[in-house]
């Protein structure tokens, strides 16, 4: 009967009668439209991409994690409690009792020790979050140890503030993997890496059912989850690369959430009472940087003049509306220790005077930029305002990997790019924007400072000092000082911080999206 009905429906449709089909997502499933082409891995020891990151967040738990109800708060995950010993450079965690993995295996101290050592041994891109604590493949066994059936002690090498260490452990690499399950699928000594890229072995509210590259991801509720069982039996990501298509699917009810809508699509949804739009501050900072390999960009007067030649407010008020806010420091707003003053605005006369005083009447520069939104618009705005003070900018658009290739080789002049923190501690961005240990070509670093060949000994030392400061308030004040120094006197001009605008079917409740992709939570979603 159903088949007949469908056939009839289709026949009617094709005949142009337009019988309305019932398009709705299943009641117990949440369907998310998103561009997921950035996904490379789903193994907590390897995943480093936005989409993969938010998915693993829902599959695993760490000892500590940020709370779904208040994402700025660090709470116990698999750890019930912990005690820090700054003098002894160690933290001891007590595990929560009775927690099991999705496989049914109990979570033990061995799983934690193994998971941490695994990250260091595999040494995938995000492993540095752990190795910076002094954990090396041959030392991690002595630095992360089991001190009882339900206790784990971790030691670190360096006078780090325990706050910093906890923030590192709350990063994705700190997620605890079910050792027995993963090792049952080990191949060629990969510690289960290959298998974990397509499967999950965690304690999170969901388990991974399926990932078809550039097509879909399916997560199902974990029956062994320690918290309240998720209302959604299934969370499904559909790869929809085109934002206009996402909007149509949301309006049609074929998806519940559209994640990548631009200002145009968002504006088009106004007045549709079946859809709501929510705005979440995000953690990426967008900046313009000046490569100090280029002689003409070494003059601090040029740095200063360019700061006054960007129409921050104008951009945020027009084409960046809803997606960005003005933020002129390297640590994003909403995080502890951020510097939220925005002293710079477009002032062509001031910039002209600064350049004239420095004896510069003309400057010809190139600007590398990614050729997808929002960069082309920002670049063109900068190009036109720079021109008013005699700075001629030639744009060099390229794909993401093309631009990054030149950036890594330090071949650019101006670079328009963004940066997201790797873990939620101000040290993550201070290392990128203030610290540079060695500026030589063979001392490659991924920091914004090194890539723009800028080194400031004093700021580098202050960055190290802030990392060691045990007093939380003092420490945050030190980061503010660093941000101020970079804001006022550096070849890096921070301009914006992004915000995510997410469109949801109005019956979807409980969706949580925090400042980073580690903080997208589906477990409280109801509809």
């Amino acid at each position, binding site marked *: 009967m*159903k*088949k007949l009905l*469908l*056939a009839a429906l*289709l026949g009617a*449709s*094709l005949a*142009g009668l*337009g*019988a*309305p*089909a019932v*398009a709705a*997502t*299943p009641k117990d*499933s949440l*369907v998310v439209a998103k561009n997921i*082409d950035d*996904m*490379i*891995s789903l193994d907590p020891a390897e995943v*480093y*991409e936005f989409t993969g990151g938010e998915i693993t967040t829902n599959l695993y738990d760490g000892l500590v994690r940020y709370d779904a109800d208040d994402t700025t708060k660090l709470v116990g995950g698999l750890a019930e409690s912990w005690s820090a010993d700054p003098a002894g450079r160690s933290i001891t965690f007590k595990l929560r009792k009775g927690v099991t993995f999705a496989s049914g295996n109990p979570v033990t101290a061995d799983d934690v020790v193994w998971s941490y050592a695994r990250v260091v041994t595999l*040494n*995938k*891109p995000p*492993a*540095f979050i752990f190795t910076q604590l002094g954990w090396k493949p041959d030392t991690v066994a002595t630095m992360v140890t089991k001190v009882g059936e339900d206790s784990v002690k971790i030691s670190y090498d360096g006078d780090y503030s325990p706050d910093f260490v906890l923030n590192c452990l709350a990063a994705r690499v700190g997620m605890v993997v079910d050792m027995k399950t993963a090792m049952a699928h080990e191949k060629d000594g990969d510690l289960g890496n290959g298998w974990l*890229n397509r499967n999950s072995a965690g304690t999170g509210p969901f388990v991974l059912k*399926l990932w*078809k*590259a*550039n*097509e*879909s991801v399916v997560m199902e509720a974990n029956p062994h989850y320690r918290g309240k069982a998720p209302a959604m039996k299934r969370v*499904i990501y*559909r*790869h*929809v*690369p*085109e934002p*206009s*298509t996402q909007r*149509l*699917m949301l*309006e*049609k009810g*074929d998806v519940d959430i559209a994640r990548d809508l631009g200002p145009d699509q968002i504006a088009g949804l106004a007045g549709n009472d079946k859809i709501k739009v929510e705005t979440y501050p995000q953690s990426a900072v967008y900046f313009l940087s000046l490569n100090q390999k280029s002689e003409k960009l070494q003059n601090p007067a040029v740095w200063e003049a360019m700061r006054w030649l960007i129409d921050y407010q104008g951009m945020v008020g027009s084409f960046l509306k809803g997606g960005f806010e003005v933020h002129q420091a390297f640590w994003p707003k909403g995080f502890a220790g951020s510097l939220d003053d925005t002293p710079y605005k477009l002032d062509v006369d001031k910039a002209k005077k600064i350049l004239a005083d420095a004896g510069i009447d003309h400057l010809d520069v190139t600007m590398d930029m990614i050729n997808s939104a929002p960069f082309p618009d920002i670049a063109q705005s900068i190009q036109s305002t720079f021109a008013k003070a005699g700075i001629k900018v030639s744009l060099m658009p390229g*794909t*993401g*990997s*093309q631009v*990054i*290739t*030149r950036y*890594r080789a330090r071949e650019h002049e101006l670079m328009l790019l963004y940066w997201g923190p*790797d873990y939620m501690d101000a040290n993550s961005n201070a290392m990128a924007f203030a610290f540079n240990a060695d500026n030589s070509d063979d001392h*490659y*670093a*991924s920091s914004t400072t090194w890539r723009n060949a800028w080194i400031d000994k004093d700021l580098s030392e202050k960055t190290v000092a802030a990392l060691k400061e045990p007093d939380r308030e003092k420490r945050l004040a030190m980061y503010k000082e660093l941000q101020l120094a970079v804001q006022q006197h550096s070849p890096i001009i921070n301009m914006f911080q992004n915000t995510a605008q997410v469109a949801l079917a109005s019956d979807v409740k409980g969706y949580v999206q925090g400042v980073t992709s580690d903080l997208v939570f589906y477990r409280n979603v109801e509809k």
Partner: protein
Amino acid sequence: MPARFLRRLISFALTLALTLFGLLAVTFVIARVVPIDPVIALVGDKAPADVYAAARAHLGLDLPLWQQFIIYLRDVLSGNLGSSSTTGNPVLSDIAHTFPATLELATYAIIVGIGLGIPLGVAAAVWQGRWPDHLIRVVSLFGYSVPVFWLGLVALLVFYARLDWVGGPGRLDIAYDYIVEPWSGLLTVDAAAAGEWDVFWNAVSHLVLPVALLAYFSMAYIGRMTRSFMIDELGKEYITTARVKGASEARVIWRHALGNAAVPLITVVALSYAYLLEGAVLTETVFAWPGLGSYITQALFDADMAAVLGGTLVVGASFVALNIFSELVYAWLDPRARMK
């Protein structure tokens, strides 16, 4: 007979091998000289120096270019196309997954394209310079000049979002996903074989728009070429002779003229089909269709060379196969080609 057949077979095999080798060599060199670092796609932008170096060595990028190529060829010959750095899968399994999606789309599109294009072309030629010809020209021209991206979105807006006549982007509705075990990868075929008619009809409803769109473009091309071939043929003396002999107009047009015009048309059709198989990237993007075109494009942007080369190989092989196929049909249609 067998000797000639064998000779032909060997020559086909040689053409295939040479074409694919040339294609791979060129793609390989281009891929290696573009200013994109393939390691970034693998380890990400922020990887520390040692992780980066290890990945680079793993990809064999430290070796001289010719050596890299030889290693690649050796792997290909043993059936190993490598792993894609963007999807993390073996390229072979990616292609086994994306190519059928494109194949399904392209095949239906070319069938519709031929079915409409040839009659329209014939009509335009028969009524050359009169209103059917003008009308058909306008319709073809529109199909030729309108950006597919725009037309796709408008079609979605009208037929999917507003009128609700067809399925939306993607190959299936969520509710029908994962019901049918993939066998051929062609959803309509798999669903029909499994007797899952709900899934079948849902797949059809998702196919309607992209197929119509692609069919429209190939129809425009095939129609225009049919028209010009037919005009050529209709002006020839044998047509006059046939008419003088009293053959009916239908017989003159469909049997005599089209019969001869069909020979060059085969090439046109084969080319349009091959073009569709390459993957219509923009159509695939608008309709969120996980096909070969978007796979190769995505891989290209990330300098994911294993995937680009693998995809190119498949596209190249389908070109050669279609060429061979059209040559066979050619021989069957044209007695002169058979004689040679």
